[in-house]
């Protein structure tokens, strides 16, 4: 049997196929049985895959990276010096910075505008590694709901809010263990990654960075 094609192609007749398959109402009951089995398991054993989401949350991977945070100095001003390292390294080209002249010549430069297009961002964390001032870090927050696309472009104000940082800690930083190891064990030339998760997410170490704006 050939269809309306230039070359010979087999045509699958769906009706034929359906006719060949065994039918009857007992099959419907069989399928319903599967549902009942799961219902019973949920009710009696309580191993339901469903959770009541905003109240209950699933544990995320240790290596999760979420919304960016712009950190602040002790006086509450932005740490960022608008060096454009993050914008340079960003593979998604989602960071936009405008620099201005800081009144304090010791600081000299600061961002008058710092936007991240969250829809373009691929959450690779390169910006965090590139930052020479620990001014941008990532949180473990993944809630980025918005009613409008323009809301997904985060400005300085929004990036300085630290969603869930106190409860969740900061996002994964693959290079930080190397940094820590080289900084704190000068004698040890090889930098091995600490194995336990506590050390890998040293939110305690960075506590001063996340001091709230006064």
């Amino acid at each position: 049997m050939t269809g309306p094609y230039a070359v010979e192609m087999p045509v699958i007749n769906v009706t034929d196929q359906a006719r060949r398959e065994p039918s009857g109402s007992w099959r419907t009951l069989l399928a319903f049985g599967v549902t009942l089995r799961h219902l019973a398991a949920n009710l009696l054993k309580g191993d339901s895959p469903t959770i009541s989401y905003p109240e209950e949350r699933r544990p995320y991977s240790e290596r999760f990276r979420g919304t960016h945070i712009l950190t602040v100095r002790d006086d509450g001003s932005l740490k960022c010096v608008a060096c454009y390292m993050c914008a340079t390294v960003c593979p998604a080209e989602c960071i936009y910075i405008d620099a201005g002249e800081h009144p304090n010549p010791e600081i000299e430069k600061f961002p008058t505008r710092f936007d991240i297009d969250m829809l373009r961002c691929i959450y690779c964390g390169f910006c965090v590694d590139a930052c020479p001032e620990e001014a941008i870090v990532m949180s473990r927050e993944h809630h980025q709901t918005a009613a409008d696309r323009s809301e997904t472009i985060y400005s300085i104000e929004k990036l300085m809010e630290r969603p869930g940082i106190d409860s969740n800690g900061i996002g994964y930083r693959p290079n930080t263990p190397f940094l820590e190891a080289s900084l704190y064990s000068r004698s040890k030339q090889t930098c091995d990654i600490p194995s336990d998760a506590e050390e890998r997410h040293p939110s305690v170490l960075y506590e001063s960075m996340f001091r709230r704006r006064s």
Partner: protein
Amino acid sequence: MPRITLNGDVYESEPGQTIIQVADDVGVSIPRYCYHPDIGVEGSCRMCLVEAEGVPKLMPACATPIRDGLIVRSDTERVKEAVRYAMEFLLLHHPIDCPVCDQSGECWLQDYYMEYAGHLSRFPLGQKRRRRKAFDIGPTVKLDQERCILCTRCVRFTENVTRTGEIQVFGRGHTGRIGVFEDRPLDNPYSINVVDVCPVGALTSTDFRFKVRAWFLQGTPSVCGGCSTGCNLRLDHSSRPQGGGIPGYSAREGTIYRTVGRRNEAVNKSWLCDEGRLSFHALEKWPRRTEARTGSETVTVERAIEQIHSRFREIRQQHGESAVAGLGSATSTNEALYLLRRYFGGHTDFRIDRETTLYREQEDDLLRRADKHPNTQGALDLGLDGPLGGLAGLVDAAERGRIRAVWVAFHPQLVGQDDPAVFERLTRLLSAVDFSVVATTHAFHWTDKAAAVLPMAAWSEESGTYTNYAGRVQLAVRAVAPPGAARPLHELMSLMLGRSGETTPSEPAGIFALLGRELPAYSGLDYDMIGSAGCVPERVEETQEVIR
């Protein structure tokens, strides 16, 4: 001709040259901070030390004159070690604030550190010498004393080139620093050149500061459109998009951020005047014209050209060939003016002001000239100073009814202001004729009077040649795209000629080849010959012989 051996290769050289000059000529790289070909020799940075045979100590290449048979090596272990130590001393008190430093990315300290040093600092961080940071030493330049390596290039620039001597070295030895006197700020008309010569981030331009990082910029060789000197410069404009889809970015893709002097010994050495350097800002003074208009309706450029040409043809048939005239200006390229002349025949002029009397007149003894148009000599070479008598003559002829239709190609002066009388005359011209076309870069009010308006690309948005006051033909390469539907004047004229049945190339190189065939003064020239340094055709001598 002394012959010297440099790293094993024998080179011919001019008598009186120094080792570093020979090395620069033949392309052997010797590191240096204090030496600059247009400022002269200081010999203080000790970066250019080389090993000369028969001399027990290492010699500074910038201050050692060559002699016949000199054998020099710049690649030995001894030289490398000396340069490494020199770098360590230069970086001893350096604040390493590269993240906020405007020079980073094009800093000679960074480059030479990566190439020659690579050491770890042996100096305790907390004991580094602190100095005054980021303060104005004039209206255009900021100084950071901490980053300075005391190469004294800026000091020698103000001493030897501008002869104003604002910048001085204060203190000696460890306390030595660059500065200006309180009552004598750096305010000479060539002040921003010190930013160009500064190899580190000590001197930064107030205009360019923090606008963009150097590695986002792409340089395009061009020629200043500010006056008839035609200084060579490099336009630095954005090269790659960043910020993705964030609003406000896309407009910046074709932005010029700064201009830097391009070395041309025959024209401007390495220098630019401040007016010319910042002249690209002049294009931002008014809103740009981005679409074509005929009557009151907005049309495509092609449609407008079609209508304009048929109207011109009608008027020519009715009132004779001489009733239609074209007015270019000395801000247009040779290519554009040539095609303009070709379309309008002998009824073409370019004089809107006093260019022809001023174009050789100097404003000071360095670079600036009184005629603020870059291509007056080129327009004269094309013979556009014909019987029409410039803008004033055109207005007169139009008001007497001898000229019925006119094409005006207007580009504002980049330096200074156009004379208000020019606008007044243009308005009179437009209202006197039956049909007027204005090809303009900006949406000026006086263009509302024109029957048709075409958007024209401005300087830096078109490639082409300019002929400076001395007759040097120089090539400016298009750096950024014109806004909206704007087209370069040579393209508009090529379209007009296409309508009248003449096929001409639309790209500048082709037009220039055509021009070279027709104009004996430019014959045999092409873009390859002009190159980056420009070229003086032998026309000047020729004409003198004819006169004799």
